[in-house]
């Protein structure tokens, strides 16, 4: 059992932060790793990326968006509650080296997920530039934390409430061209966020010939390489995102296949959420 030591809503009842005591994970986790949560007996296992950790306190912090039954259940946990199962760090940590200038392109909840990557890249002397976006200003959660590690932050929102009006892909292309005018470029782009966004980010960087790493988010079950639920096609070969990734060369990823596979359980997900809502959030207050 893993104790919740902090819980805060960051945006309405949609996005929350949860800090959990898990010393053996905090001690080993690095940027790029993820965890698998199982909230309680009977719940499913879901993969979640860590936004921050504290080795001294022995805690890990995750930022989670309520999108279905399991995330809604986790959102019902308060300080002092216990999570049944938590396993990690899983996956291969981000390959960190001095690339030069790295652009981090994130949308929505990709921003907190990119936090540790930005931090570790900056620590080894990279110039990190944030290119971040969300539907509206309030959904740009955790961008202040990430901006500590960036020499420059570029914002966009769908409704224009912060920064450029438009998508991260437009903002990225604008930034690439701006750099090109000065005879400069990104040495690497790291992207994390919705799969559709990563697909189009990848298309743009391919056009400008910028090496790009994407952190993929397929369906997972065990997260330890024993089932292949998370398989993706990279460079024509099957890879298991949980043990071979989750980060891959974005230009070699079959994003359309990944998008299709993510839709696999739509019907069941709706049924599960409806049942949960009917039962008044499993007996706990929302």
């Amino acid at each position, binding site marked *: 059992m893993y104790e919740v030591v902090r819980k805060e809503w960051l945006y309405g009842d949609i996005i929350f932060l949860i800090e959990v005591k898990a010393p053996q994970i905090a001690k080993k986790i690095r940027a790029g790793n993820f965890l698998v949560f199982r909230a309680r007996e009977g719940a499913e296992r879901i993969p979640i990326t860590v936004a921050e950790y504290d080795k001294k306190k022995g805690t890990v912090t995750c930022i989670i968006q309520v999108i279905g039954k399991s995330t809604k259940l986790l959102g019902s946990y308060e300080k002092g509650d216990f999570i049944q199962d938590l*396993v990690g760090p899983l996956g291969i940590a981000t390959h960190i080296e001095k690339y030069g200038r790295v652009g981090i392109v994130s949308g929505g909840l990709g921003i907190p997920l990119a936090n540790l990557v930005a931090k570790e890249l900056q620590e080894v002397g990279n110039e990190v530039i944030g290119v971040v976006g969300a539907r509206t200003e309030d959904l740009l959660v955790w961008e202040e934390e990430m901006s500590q590690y960036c020499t420059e932050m570029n914002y966009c929102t769908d409704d224009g409430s912060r920064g450029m009006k438009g998508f991260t892909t437009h903002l990225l292309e604008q930034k690439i061209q701006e750099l090109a005018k000065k005879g400069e470029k990104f040495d690497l782009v790291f992207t994390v966020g919705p799969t559709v966004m990563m697909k189009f980010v990848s298309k743009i960087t391919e056009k400008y010939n910028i090496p790009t790493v994407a952190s993929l988010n397929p369906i997972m079950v065990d997260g330890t390489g024993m089932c292949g639920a998370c*398989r993706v096609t990279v460079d024509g070969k099957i890879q298991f995102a949980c043990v071979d990734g989750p980060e891959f060369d974005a230009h070699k990823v079959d994003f359309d296949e990944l998008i299709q596979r993510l839709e696999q359980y739509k019907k069941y997900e709706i049924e*599960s959420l409806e049942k949960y809502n009917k039962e008044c959030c499993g007996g706990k207050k929302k």
Partner: protein
Amino acid sequence: MPTQNPEDRIDNFSEVPYGYNEAEAMLEAQRCLQCKNQPCVSGCPVEVPIRDFIALIREGKFMEAASIIKAKNSLPAVTGRVCPQELQCEAKCVMGRRYQPVAIGNLERFAADYAREEGEKIPELPKSTGKKIAVVGAGPAGLTCAGDLALLGHKVTIFEALHKPGGVLVYGIPEFRLPKDMVKYEIDYLIQLGVEVKLNFLVGKNKTVDELLDEYDAVFVGSGAGAPRLLNIPGINLVNVYSANEYLTRVNLLKGYLFPEYKTPVKRGKNVVVIGAGNVAMDSARTAKRLGADHSIIVYRRSRKECPARVEEVHHAEEEEIEFRFLTNPVRIIGDELGAVRAVECLQFELGEPDETGRAKPIPIPGSEHLIECDVVVISVGNDPNPIIPRTTPDLEISKWGTIVTDRITGKTSKERVYAGGDIATGAATVIAAMGAGKVAAKSIHKQIMGIEETEIESI
């Protein structure tokens, strides 16, 4: 042995055979000739004292029978149910030369079930040796190794990556073949022997084998062959194409068959194609039937007599109207406009000359392409060793197949104080072979950490 009716059982996940009652067990035990040289024991990888426990059952001393089995075999309720006895103990039974061999597996199962229901006592443990052993993986190999070491007075800690111990016993073998309560009971028994089980702990990630060696006198690696092989054919990544591991994990470990009460979904296909014909394929096909499939079809490239599954499981599958397409092999999987599986295209084969394994080689018949319509495909063509320990333990010798190289007589690896056994050392094999390897390693770990000479451990 009496079983549930096929028509009833395809609607539930309850165990198929009911097991003996006391009278039936005593009657079957009467058939044992009590041979002096006990050929049956030589067929048992974990050396169960077969003649002696059967003698006790004849006398109605069921608890005593269970207790002498348990001194050698930590998981008798499991092995009595899932061992391919027809290839092991029962194959060596003298009665089997002219009649049916004695039903050793069923009797072992009876004794274990009896003891569980009556409540068995924990044996007196020897004085603690003060030695600590880490066991990686709570599958059959690790559990056996841990149980044997605990009975020798050592402090054992098992590290398990999943949220439940048991390995393939909990995520792979379905409830209708091995009820999960029994696995839990046998593991609880080990815990009562003083074995500690740490769940959600992934050795290689939370701690490496080297870090374990700082704290423990020895490490046993029983991390299994949990990495599914997939076919290299077009369409393998279509929606609703599962590895058998994923399909069975969703259903068994996460109780997907009880969705939405349990939260893990699994696609309930109307027409399910299972590729392969081992025990895992039978388990998948029978599971699909219980999830409501009208047609659950096994596609196998060889013929019936080459099926690697247990005879009893093939028989149960046939009773449950699982359809078999022998000498048939998939060439591609076809999807619809949403990327979901719609059919498997197969080729028909005929048998040719024997190949290097001595089995007739299947040869495709030109122009025999045909479609099998389906909405779920389960790939069950074997597993590779789990790569996490090999990848995170740099000085451990690994074979070209990804297995940990061990001395088969001692279970020793190339690394000092590190032992391995089960599927991680042999590649995917049976539960009982893994248990045998756990037993072998326990003996040599004991010998090494206690500084005992070879001859002194014969009695263990």
